[in-house]
């Protein structure tokens, strides 16, 4: 029954850090299920694993899914949820956890960029310090609305690293013509509840119902260079710089017209059809505009002309 022995070894490895059980003991339980009760090996393995999970008071996601070591990844490599990985990264920022279930939350960074991390309270892990670099073994990737993060869990091994990491810039730079200003742009109202900031639809927040909203400015625009399109969000400051319309002025305009849509209309006229270079971090499918440059100067046609004549 070498087959059962192999399965027993793998299960043993999964629980090695949490439980004091021998390979023989596991093999015996598998053997009972498979040979006495005629249970298929996959089901037997599942049953035994679950009983050890109960015994160790663990969730299925807290144990390694396969044998052997994890892939060592960098922040920008993470592109799928629920993968077990190792990484070496610097704690770039720590944020205030919004729930007691979260011990620490923030941003990890390496040469390739940054990624959000969450450390659960129940995992009982040591504190991470901002600015320090760590080797993290056994973290699990996660995804929310196209954005990836890593979660530290009970089995995660944290070791402080000596090396200094230069955290890379995961921002994107895009050039193109602004071909659309989407709905939800201009003078908007946001939910005033703590930590909410959702944009109101007809005075209602999808989470908190009817609320007295707070005015804000933003633009959801589309940059297009003839090859690719990029959706860009301009926050209040970027919108003010881009359009020359400040929040107070926008409120006055809306008040005079008894209609907030006049603000977006005025903005469209000022910015549509112009070329911009925009730089900033990406969030899901959106680029958040940190730096915006209007491209208004003439460009030299010489290079294109040489190519056009040569082909």
């Amino acid at each position, binding site marked *: 029954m070498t087959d059962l022995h192999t399965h027993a070894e793998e299960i043993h490895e999964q629980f090695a850090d949490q439980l004091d059980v021998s390979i023989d003991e596991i093999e015996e339980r598998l053997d009972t299920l498979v040979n006495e009760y005629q249970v298929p090996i996959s089901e037997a393995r599942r049953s035994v694993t679950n009983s050890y999970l109960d015994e160790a008071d663990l969730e299925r996601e807290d144990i390694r899914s396969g044998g052997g070591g994890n892939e060592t990844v960098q922040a920008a490599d993470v592109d799928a949820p629920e993968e077990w990985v190792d990484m070496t990264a610097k704690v770039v920022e720590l944020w205030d956890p919004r729930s007691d279930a979260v011990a620490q939350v923030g941003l990890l960074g390496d040469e390739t960029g940054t990624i959000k991390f969450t450390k659960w309270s129940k995992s009982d892990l040591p504190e991470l310090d901002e600015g320090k670099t760590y080797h993290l073994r056994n973290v699990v990737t996660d995804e929310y609305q196209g954005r990836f993060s890593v979660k530290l869990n009970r089995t995660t091994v944290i070791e402080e690293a000596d090396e200094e990491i230069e955290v890379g810039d995961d921002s994107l730079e895009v050039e193109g013509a602004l071909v659309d200003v989407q709905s939800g742009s201009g003078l908007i109202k946001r939910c005033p509840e703590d930590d909410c900031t959702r944009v109101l639809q007809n005075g209602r927040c999808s989470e908190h119902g009817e609320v007295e909203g707070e005015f804000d400015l933003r633009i959801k625009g589309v940059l297009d260079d003839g090859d690719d*399109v990029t959706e860009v969000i301009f926050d209040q400051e970027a919108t003010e710089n881009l359009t020359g319309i400040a929040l107070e002025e926008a409120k006055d305009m809306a008040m005079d017209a008894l209609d907030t849509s006049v603000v977006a209309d005025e903005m469209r006229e000022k910015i549509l*059809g112009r070329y911009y270079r925009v730089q900033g971090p990406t969030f899901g499918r959106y680029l958040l505009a940190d730096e915006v440059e209007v491209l208004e100067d*003439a460009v030299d046609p010489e290079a294109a*002309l040489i*190519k056009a004549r040569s082909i």
Partner: protein
Amino acid sequence: MAATPTREVAQRVFAGEFNDATYTFKESDDDRAPVYVLLPTGERANRVFIVGTLTETEDVGEDSEYWQGRVVDPNGDTFFMYAGQYQPDAASMLRELEPPAYVAVVGKPRTYETDDGEVNVSVRPESITPVNEGTRDRWVVETAERTLERVQAYREADPTQEEFAPDEYVRMAHEEYEPAIENYRRLVVDALETLDEESQSEAEA
């Protein structure tokens, strides 16, 4: 993210090529499926971005306002655009703007057949905004580059050659138009030369 319908690129095309794009098609039987015009250089377009000189506006409507705008590119070729009650922003722009003026237009290509069986290509504008000369110049260079890319891709995929890299829209263009592809390269050279002369005479002045 796969569920998000991806917005299609606004093609860059000179008027000389755009007005030859008389063949339209859909990619599916769905009533709401987008209508594409087929560019003779072998690319589909359901949106275009144009910057040029608005030379004339005219209300050609009978019962209600229906504005025609003529936008000319550096080769002297004309894009025609029509905006009525369903394009209120574009219509009011055409009503208010004083030609000549540089304008940027985002719009959908449309075709219609005249009584004598000729197919005319026009733009149904989504937006029209006044812009400066620098923006126009940038568009000319960008449109030249994109057009050259299409010309090169066409040549590589031209099915009349002994060896070619198959391309769906190049094949379609070959079947529908049998285009003289050299003409579209010529449009690029002419447009860039005009721009080059303009900038030189400005430098001398």
